[in-house]
């Protein structure tokens, strides 16, 4: 396969997968609303396109199976087959099988294994029930050519010439229909040699009656070719309507020629002369033929039997056209809200974003230099440029943003199938499908989501009988929701099940030594215990069996994406798992701070405010790890201590950057506030992976490296330190 075609095949594979996903979504939609004509149309189109394109690549196994599916869908569209649960089930499975076919046949160039073949034959049998009777009228695309049936009047022998003879009288409308008779002749001459050609324009009316857009031309052609009759007839197939086309093979019967002469509008003698002059007939053949025909046909003068047949044939076509016109007015124009896309290879986008990242860094360098030389003109110019660079950055990142809806809607099928498996009736409600996030994040969030959804269905939502017993609707509801929140996307998995068993978790956590026996943390903390590694077992939390299994993996996956996961639950009412993820993994708006000689970046969207640490506060911070922020308790982390940075000069002023994350606030104590800075995130090497409080690194315009602070973990640390101290203090009080 050529390189180009191979590329086209890749396009096909991606396209087919997408269409199959659409088909599945539409089928599920159809289950809810079986009469939705638009959806039925979309499903049909998907199958239609998959089949049509597969044919282009000679992917016969796909064509042959999809053809059956398309057939059934066509009948559904025409209202001959009614949508019902079984049909949707078969179609869903057929879609799965088509996906398998695409993967195996198109992507790997392989063949189905025995299991898949067995599955396919099973599906074929089930689909058969919905197909029309097999003898459905197949259209005949072959041009109407002379019937081979010989004339009863067996007068005359065969003509001598070994050329084909082609007689053409084009219909009046061929040129209006966009077809140029000359084009057919040009194509004909690629199939053989036009030995002779006579242009017939006897039909051309007087100038005042002649319509310049109507065709009045005809041709008598002697043609030498090894092509078969169907091929030669095929040349004129598009002009068949309204045209008279006669193709006589070499050595045809003389009678056929004579009848040909009779069937055309021109004067017999003239046509006869033409045939003789071009060598199609000899003079003798013509004379013999004409006289014999005269004696053997009924002597009613100017009868032109074949002509009549052809006229009849034309009137038939007229009716067909009329029927088509009638049908056409009934058919509604299909509407669709599908968007238009350019398919771009993800690598190209990544490359672009990388380059933009470098551009941002270089731009930052220029800005820093401009500030240093304090040239107003230069500063103005760089600020305009940074504005543009920022827009380019946002634009480039937006290119990689995709709505999460596609990921969500994949779960329709999961919920449906798992629900059946578990014998639970569960409805999936999707909200916020249009919320966008970076494609790289989307790709990685699928697995954790799958885990959470399955868990919620399996262990969260109760069986119908239990639900009814506690007065809930029998049908369970699972909600997937997404929204943007200060530079993050929040994804929620909400079930209306029984909720977590707080006491069991607490008990288990104590057994494991995760919580001190005499401490009772807030409920939210207890619930989030289930994200600890290997936390739960079936006997520990019966109504939750298994929910803990793999939850630590979920958390690890999400943490790896610089995200956080938390869980909230209310007994009897359900559980909400919230995943908070950064919108993109590539670039953030940072806030540059200095500690000693080192620079750190705080993600700007987490910065609430900056305050100067007064002398009084400094005194206090030596004794306790919280500040009084306008009457509010603000736990803080001294970055100098945390990262063990050498201090330079004792009495420098200190500042506090107030950050917030997931509803918790904390202060970061730093030396210097250096302002906003666009930050291209460079991942840290593996050796830094154990470093707490750092999520990545970046390069400053000056070429120095700055570390990006992992604010969630710092906030967590600050808050924990504080609450532990508080609780130990409380403890010591109570002991005393």
């Amino acid at each position: 396969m050529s390189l180009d075609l191979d590329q086209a095949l890749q396009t096909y594979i991606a396209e087919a997968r997408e269409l199959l996903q659409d088909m599945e979504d539409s089928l599920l939609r159809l289950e809810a609303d079986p009469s939705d004509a638009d959806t039925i149309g979309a499903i049909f189109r998907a199958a239609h396109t998959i089949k049509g394109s597969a044919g282009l690549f000679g992917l016969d196994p796909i064509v042959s199976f999809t053809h059956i599916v398309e057939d059934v869908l066509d009948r559904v569209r025409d209202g001959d087959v009614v949508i019902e649960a079984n049909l949707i089930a078969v179609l869903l499975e057929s879609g799965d099988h088509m996906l398998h076919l695409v993967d195996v046949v198109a992507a790997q160039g392989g063949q189905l294994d025995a299991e898949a073949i067995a599955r396919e034959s099973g599906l074929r049998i089930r689909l058969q029930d919905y197909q029309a009777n097999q003898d459905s009228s197949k259209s005949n695309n072959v041009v109407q050519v002379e019937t081979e049936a010989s004339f009863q009047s067996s007068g005359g022998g065969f003509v001598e010439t070994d050329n084909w003879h082609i007689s053409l009288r084009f219909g009046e409308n061929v040129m209006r229909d966009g077809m140029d008779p000359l084009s057919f002749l040009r194509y004909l001459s690629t199939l053989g040699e036009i030995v002779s050609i006579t242009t017939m324009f006897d039909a051309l009316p007087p100038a005042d009656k002649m319509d310049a857009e109507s065709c009045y031309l005809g041709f008598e052609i002697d043609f030498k070719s090894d092509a078969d009759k169907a091929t030669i007839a095929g040349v004129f197939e598009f002009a068949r309507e309204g045209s008279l086309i006669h193709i006589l093979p070499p050595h045809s019967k003389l009678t056929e020629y004579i009848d040909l002469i009779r069937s055309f509008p021109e004067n017999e003698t003239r046509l006869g002369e033409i045939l003789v002059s071009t060598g199609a007939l000899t003079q003798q053949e013509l004379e013999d033929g004409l006289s014999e025909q005269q004696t053997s046909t009924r002597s009613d003068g100017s009868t032109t039997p074949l002509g009549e047949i052809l006229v009849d044939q034309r009137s038939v076509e007229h009716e067909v056209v009329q029927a088509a016109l009638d049908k056409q007015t009934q058919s509604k124009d299909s509407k669709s809200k599908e968007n238009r896309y350019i398919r771009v290879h993800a690598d190209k986008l990544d490359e672009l974003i990388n380059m933009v990242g470098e551009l941002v860094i270089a731009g930052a360098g220029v800005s820093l230099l401009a500030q240093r030389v304090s040239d107003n003109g230069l500063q103005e110019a760089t600020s305009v440029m940074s504005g543009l660079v920022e827009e380019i950055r946002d634009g480039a990142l937006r290119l990689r943003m995709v709505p999460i809806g596609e990921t969500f809607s994949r779960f329709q099928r999961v919920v449906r199938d798992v629900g059946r498996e578990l014998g639970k009736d569960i409805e999936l409600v999707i909200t916020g499908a249009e919320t966008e996030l970076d494609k790289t994040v989307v790709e990685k969030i699928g697995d954790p989501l799958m885990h959470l959804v399955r868990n919620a269905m399996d262990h969260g939502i109760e069986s119908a009988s239990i639900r009814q017993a506690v007065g809930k609707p029998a049908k369970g509801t699972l909600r997937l929701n997404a929204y943007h929140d200060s530079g993050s996307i929040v994804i929620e998995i909400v079930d209306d099940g029984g909720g977590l068993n707080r006491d069991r978790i607490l008990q288990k956590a104590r057994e494991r030594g995760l919580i001190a026996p005499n401490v009772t943390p807030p409920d939210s903390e207890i619930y989030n215990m289930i994200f600890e590694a290997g936390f739960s077992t079936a006997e520990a939390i019966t109504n939750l069996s298994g929910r803990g299994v793999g939850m630590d993996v979920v958390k690890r996956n999400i943490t790896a994406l610089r995200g956080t996961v938390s869980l909230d639950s209310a007994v009897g009412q359900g559980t909400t798992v919230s995943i908070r993820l950064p919108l993109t993994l590539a670039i953030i708006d940072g806030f540059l701070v200095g500690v000693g000689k080192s620079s750190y970046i705080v993600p700007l969207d987490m910065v609430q405010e900056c305050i100067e640490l007064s002398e009084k506060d400094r005194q206090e911070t030596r004794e306790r790890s919280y500040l009084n922020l306008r009457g509010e308790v603000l736990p803080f982390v001294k970055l100098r201590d945390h990262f063990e940075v050498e201090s330079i000069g004792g009495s420098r002023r200190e500042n506090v950057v107030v950050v917030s994350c997931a509803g918790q606030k904390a202060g970061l104590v730093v030396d210097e506030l250096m302002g906003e800075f666009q930050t291209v995130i460079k991942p840290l090497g593996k050796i830094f992976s154990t470093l707490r409080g750092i999520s990545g690194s970046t390069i400053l315009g000056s070429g120095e490296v700055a570390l990006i602070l992992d604010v969630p973990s710092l906030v967590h640390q600050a808050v924990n330190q504080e609450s532990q101290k508080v609780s130990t203090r409380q403890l010591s009080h109570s002991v005393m």
Partner: protein
Amino acid sequence: MPISSRNNNGQSLLHIEGDMTIYTAADMKDELMNHIAQPCDREIDLSEVSEMDSAGLQILILAKRDSERHGTSLRLTGHSRAVLDVLDMCNLAPYFGDPVVLSCNEKKGQ
């Protein structure tokens, strides 16, 4: 106008420029027929005809036939490549009876 005309010693010289196709056929027919109705001999320069299809060919045939009916002569000259191709394909050069100039290169280029 795609057709321009001038008079040369009682002979009308017409010059057709651009496409002679179905898109231009209707206008061209009307204009050309107006000229043909004038009782004088006539020559049509086809050197600037860029494209010709069946519709254009029909116009030329019509002009030739009507000239004969009016008893005037019609000569086609300077056939462009596009015109020659069509006349050649349809074997109509003898019908028009005009001398046709083919350069060797062009003939080989076919």
